[in-house]
């Protein structure tokens, strides 16, 4: 089996998991959420194998061009999906709130679909600029950070839906329907905070490894290149989020919005900068 076929299976697994989690919201059936989780975890396992296989395949191409599959837009989007499900798994094992899956798996599924349908999946040898071990450290830390922010964003959307509906129902009806399986607002707020607590040090490491690499390859650790600047913008937003926790009035709804804005900035940093702005990160990753 080739890695491309395996990636297709992964996409199907994430799609099934996503649909099942949504069915779970409607039916509240424990069995459905269990199968949804199995699909997600099985998908993650296959995903890991597929990334490993692609890595191996790159060494089978003549000319000694093998490298970790983290070097172009296709590979980075696939890796992004992998980190999202990985961080989701960590949060799921800790909090055991299957409803969260319905708001996180879509990110992973959309990434995989986009990569499989419209991105170039050819394994290319590395251009000189990317021939460095720093590439691996830099990409892994950045994307784990991005993924944690994706989970935080999903949970923040849940929070806003939950709080919004509860306010409308003005407390007389115990939140029924889909909301019944949502974790409590307090737990959602907590997962949001914890995810960002995981993501922030990782983003910091990602920026630092990027700076170290830039200094090693170009002789300057910081040049206000749009990608660098946007990663710093994301860092500022989440730094504001973390400090906001210590002041009254910034938990709950405002924190959820800040988390969503933070993730929007993250996505712009990741994709928007390459598609809209120009700069040094022109390899598409």
């Amino acid at each position, binding site marked *: 089996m080739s890695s491309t076929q395996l990636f297709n299976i992964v996409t199907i697994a994430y799609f099934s998991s996503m649909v099942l989690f949504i069915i779970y919201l409607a039916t509240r059936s424990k069995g459905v959420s269990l199968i949804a989780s199995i699909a997600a975890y099985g998908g993650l396992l296959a995903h890991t194998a597929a990334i490993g296989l692609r890595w191996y395949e790159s060494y089978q191409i003549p*000319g000694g061009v093998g490298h970790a599959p983290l070097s172009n837009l296709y590979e980075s989007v696939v890796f992004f999906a992998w980190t999202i499900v990985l961080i989701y798994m960590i949060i799921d094992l800790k909090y055991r709130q299957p409803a969260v899956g319905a708001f996180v798996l879509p990110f992973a599924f959309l990434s995989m679909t986009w990569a499989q349908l419209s991105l170039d999946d050819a394994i*290319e040898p590395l251009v000189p600029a990317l021939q460095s071990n720093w590439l691996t450290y830099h990409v892994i830390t950045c994307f784990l950070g991005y993924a944690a922010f994706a989970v935080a964003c999903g949970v923040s959307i849940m929070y806003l839906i939950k709080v919004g509906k509860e306010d409308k129902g003005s407390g007389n009806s115990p939140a029924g329907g889909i909301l019944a399986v949502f974790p409590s607002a307090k737990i959602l707020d907590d997962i949001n905070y914890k995810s960002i607590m995981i993501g922030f040090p990782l983003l910091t490491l990602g920026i630092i490894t990027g700076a170290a690499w830039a200094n090693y390859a170009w002789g*300057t650790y910081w040049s206000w290149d749009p990608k660098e600047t946007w990663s710093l913008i994301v860092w*500022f937003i989440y730094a*504001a989020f973390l400090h906001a926790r210590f002041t009254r009035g910034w938990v709950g709804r405002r924190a959820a919005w800040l988390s969503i804005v933070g993730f929007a900035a993250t996505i712009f940093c990741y994709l928007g900068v390459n598609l809209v*702005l120009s700069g040094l990160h022109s390899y598409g990753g």
Partner: protein
Amino acid sequence: MNAKDRNPATALWDFFCSLKLTIVTLILLAATSIIGTVIQQNRTPEEYLQVYSETTYRILNTLKFFDMYHSWWFLALLGIFSINLISCSIKRFPRVWKTVKEPVLVPDETLYRTFSNMEEIVIPASVDEVRKKVADFTSSHFSTPVVTEESGKVHLFAQKAAYARFGVYVTHISILIIFIGAIIGTLWGYKAFVNIVEGTATDKVWPRGSNEPIDLGFSVRCDEFSVSYYEGSSRPREFKSLLTVIDEGRTITEKRPVVVNDPLTYEGITFYQSSYGPAGEPVFNFKVRVKETGEVANITARQGQRVQLPGGGAFRVVDFTPSYQNFGPGARLEVFTESGKRNSFIVLQAFPDFDAQRGGVYSFTLVDFKQRFYTGLQVAKDPGVWVVWLGCTLMVLGSMIAFFLSHRRIWITIMPVGGKTGIKLGGSAHRNQPAFELFFDDFKKNLKAELVARD
């Protein structure tokens, strides 16, 4: 104290200590940083005027938007950010230092009442017996307690990871250290570039945005520059310069390969492979066969130069590329026969016999060619870079400590109650209290079991 009583100094101090200022500054930094990613930075006025109208250009220029990250207002924002950071730390640090260095060893009723997990147990045993058991249990299940005796009561205090409280200060200081490193680099470092033609040397480099060269104090020679490609592809694999450093006639390092991602450093000055280009026209060596007679001649030609051929004809190299449609080096030739007929075709170095199949008077083989290149090097000197890395290391360590470790404390008071012994215990963590609660519930349960068990 209400606002009226405050003198301006206190008001200013409170302003700079406030967390609200932190949040506002961070959001302002994030928002304004976007400007420099939308408007291209540090271009010439001519380039800007192609994009913007003159009025817009003047407004943007006044606002310093063309070099915004070095503008007075952006630096002022970073200044406020730093003062805020320092003030907050100065304000909060002494209290935290006291909490860690002078912990409450003798807890009173008020302290116990603040714990949500306080527990009281009564054990039919002597105070001394219980005290030993509790101290041993705490040592082996948490950390060694400090024991204080006061008015017939015995107080135990044990803590773990007290240094976790300093993580946030380490993180804050690390930001200032990075700023200091950046300032050192700006004041005593430079970024420059130099182009060196193969076989020549230079002892000067040109800083960006200046016409005055900087003297290196030693010289750098480029012995060779080469580009290699991936097999069967026009995708470059490696750009390589062989550099030799000569200091006062002494050769320091000879023909050191410098490639992208592997620079050369000497005397704190680092040379990075950055660009390249041809220096002058290439020189070709051809083997030309006159088909009719079988006569073979070796001919050297420069690009564009008209060269006579045996048998009365002539030719010139019109064009050359090091990579012709993935077939490697190829030259376009123009041949003039004696009768004045002109003929143009391509000769590939990788296929020496190919041209023989072409009709015509001559067949050509491209034996080799010599193209002199220049190598373009970025040159950087940054004495502040180690300070920046120190700051980065502290930032990672500090934020890990601040986010993932918590200062946990347990207080236990043992006192006689009637003929028995009463134990009161409680504890807290400075972050992640729920996880501590789980640990503390286990701790209480096991301690109780230990005390009740008979030995």
